[in-house]
């Protein structure tokens, strides 16, 4: 190729790029315009569902105790008078899952705020069983007992101060509509100090149920 001919081609090359660029731009413009006017007919279909209602989870105690969420129940039959060292009293408490889903539940014990707790740390213990209750006699020494399975390894001595003390956790699952009989064994150890004579207090058990998530 001679020198003058190459010079001509080099001056033409930039001009030849305009054609494809213009063609592409035209195509884009036409395409967009075409898309915006694509559908003359259209339709919207709507569906309304039936009512969607949440289920409930409610842990109730005994028959009609602690109905609703976050509610309290006073069971005055769990009581003792003239409690002496070496005595233990057993009380029934039924836990009922009236909700529609299985739950696991845990429990803590603390001193109830409704009455001053005047015992020291050696005086009152609590152990919870899943099982039936054998009532104590009425004469000293009263020795009630619980059948079934202890839900924690040893009795918990109720502390005269501080927060709730764990008894057991993740008990269950307890199916929807199911119930479980518990037995609360309240005792005064034979080692209870002499200073506890005539002292008094009330207990509060907090049971927390949580849905078992599949």
């Amino acid at each position, binding site marked *: 190729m001679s020198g003058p001919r190459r010079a001509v081609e080099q001056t033409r090359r930039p001009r030849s790029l305009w054609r494809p660029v213009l063609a592409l731009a035209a195509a884009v413009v036409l395409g967009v315009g075409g898309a915006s006017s694509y559908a003359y007919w259209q339709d919207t279909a709507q569906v309304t569902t039936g009512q969607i209602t949440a289920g409930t989870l409610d*842990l109730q105690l005994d028959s009609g105790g602690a109905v609703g969420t976050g509610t309290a129940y*006073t069971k005055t039959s*769990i009581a003792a008078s003239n*409690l002496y060292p070496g005595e233990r009293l057993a009380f029934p408490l039924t836990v009922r899952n009236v*909700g529609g889903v299985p739950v696991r539940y845990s429990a803590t014990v603390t001193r109830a705020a409704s009455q001053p707790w005047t015992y020291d740390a050696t005086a009152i213990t609590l152990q919870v069983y899943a099982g039936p209750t054998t009532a104590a006699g009425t004469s000293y020494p009263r020795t009630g007992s619980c059948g079934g399975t202890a839900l924690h390894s040893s009795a918990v001595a109720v502390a005269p101060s501080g927060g709730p003390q764990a008894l057991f956790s993740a008990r269950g699952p307890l199916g929807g509509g199911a119930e479980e009989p518990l037995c609360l064994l309240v005792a005064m150890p034979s080692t209870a100090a002499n200073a506890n004579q005539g002292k008094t207090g009330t207990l509060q058990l907090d049971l*927390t149920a949580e849905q078992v998530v599949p």
Partner: protein
Amino acid sequence: MRSGTRVVVALTLLALVALGSSARSTQAAFSDAAAVTTGALTAGTVEPVTGLNCAVEAEGARFTWTGAPNRQYVVTVTGATTGVVAATTTTTATSYTVNRALLGLGTWRVSVRAVLPGTSWVAPSAPSRNVSLALNLISCP
């Protein structure tokens, strides 16, 4: 794969695992808290004996008293002026005879304290009576 890419992939996987586990632990589930409050749990007491009485008998001075069931009694004979303990006896009976031979001349204080057997619980007070020996004569002043 380059080492930098590997690190990025590993960190991403770790983040996914962490997010996945935290998402499981915070899965929204229903819950309920039910509380039960008991009635009063009231301790008993060890009451002091009542009606402590002293009576002179042939062998000595007989002390009697009244106490609650299931109690033991600690009887202590102490010199009224000296404070010396002459005898200490634990009994479940509600009477105790201080033998004439035990007593020296003078006045003795006999106290009875109720206790709960097998525990550290004792009555808050121990009623007492005196018995005297003078010239071989016992009296309950």
